[in-house]
């Protein structure tokens, strides 16, 4: 097994291939996105897995970017909030957050939106209770929870209960 203290990392972010040299293995995916790729939409709230502000999609599954060593993402595909819209057309979840006032200060919002987009794909939108449970990995200090549930429900195309 070949151990190294500096690594070459190839990964695809928002559809673009990157090749990053001289990577310290201690760098998290969150810090790589923010500090090296300057994609600052993904937020650092707690840096301990406790808030969900850093939620991104890794090979189409939602994960906490602060809990991942960037070096372990070799060859994988990452989508951040910057890559969710289709050109100028917002993702339905982004539009629903605007329509339903799903945020106040907005700090948790990129994570909430990434989580909600994945949750709809997962099919965990059967009831408001189910949405709340499966959105529980994203804390909102402004407590916009009722509006967030409304936004997710509407983006999932389900009528109000």
């Amino acid at each position: 097994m070949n151990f190294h203290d500096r690594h070459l990392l190839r990964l695809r972010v928002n559809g673009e291939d990157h090749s990053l040299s001289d990577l310290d293995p201690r760098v998290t995916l969150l810090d790589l996105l923010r500090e090296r790729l300057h994609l600052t939409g993904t937020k650092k709230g707690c840096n301990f897995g406790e808030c969900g502000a850093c939620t991104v999609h890794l090979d189409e599954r939602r994960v906490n970017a602060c809990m991942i060593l960037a070096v372990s993402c070799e060859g994988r595909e990452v989508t951040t909030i910057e890559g969710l819209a289709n050109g100028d057309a917002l993702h339905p979840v982004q539009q629903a957050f605007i329509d339903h006032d799903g945020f106040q200060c907005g700090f948790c919002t990129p994570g909430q939106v990434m989580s909600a987009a994945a949750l709809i794909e997962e099919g965990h939108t059967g009831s408001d209770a189910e949405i709340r449970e499966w959105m529980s990995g994203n804390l909102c200090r402004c407590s916009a929870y009722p509006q967030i549930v409304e936004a997710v429900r509407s983006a999932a195309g389900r009528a109000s209960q």
Partner: protein
Amino acid sequence: MTPFVYARADSLGETIAAGAAPDSAFLAGGTELLNWLRLGIAEPTRIIDISRLDGLDQVEALPGGGLTIGALTHLNDVAQHALVMRDYPVLSQAILNAASPQLRNLATIGGNLLQKTRCAYFRAEEQLPCNKRQLGSGCSALHGINDNHAIFGWTEDCVATQPSDPAVALAALDAVIVTAHRSGGRRIPAAEFHLLPDTRPEADNVLQQGELITAIELPAPAPRSAYLKVRERESYEYAIVSAAAVLEMDGQTIRRAALALGSVALRPWRLSAAEEQLAGAEIGDREALSTAIEQSFAEARPLSQNAYKIELAKTAALRAIERAARMPS
């Protein structure tokens, strides 16, 4: 974080060879290890990324009945596997009550069993007296903030609890933890995997340096089983207490019961005395069930701030039994 070197493992053989070197650590989902590195709880100099090892992320039926779950299977994939949901609801429920959806996409079932206590003194950013952080430095919780600490099996050296939810279900199911090691592997009963603080308070479990969990085996199906978690908020929170119940029933009569409590000791706590007395009890007879549960609490010992956990644990056990009895068989 202190510096380390990193390598990705491609085969089981090289993994257990490399893991045997002191100061090496395996990286699976990373949801515990990264926090240990940040807090200085662990300072490995070599990280072995096992997350891409082949063949360790499958859930499969065993030929003689039962199920084997690869150690690298992500928590969400274990909990939502059709066979786990149908035959081992207690495990599915325990997992879906753990952590958050995002963390469960990263966290593995093997890594989950190796998580350490949430004791705030242990996880403090500046080092406080804690025998689990530094043996011999004392236990800050013994006469400090201990409202969510142990009621069973503690010593003056450490009064912490093991926080894993899945481990409680696995203990009640009599699951087996299968390992590989340079000097051969072994099969460890889930209820004996974690260590109480009575011999080596600094150690959490029986694994040796470089010993890899490869699978978790579940015995015969346990459709009448359930998990109950009591916590301060509804979701994304560790337990104050939790209870796993596995029943076999003849009509309304309990033929056999297995019960384990979580977050009450440094290991999932089996209620053996209660289990014995529950055999033959009617599920509708709450008094009989409560009396049986009471048998196992003779050995409960509260700390200065957590006597309430004893009552909570008894009620949780009772409700878990009733919930298990209502599951379709």
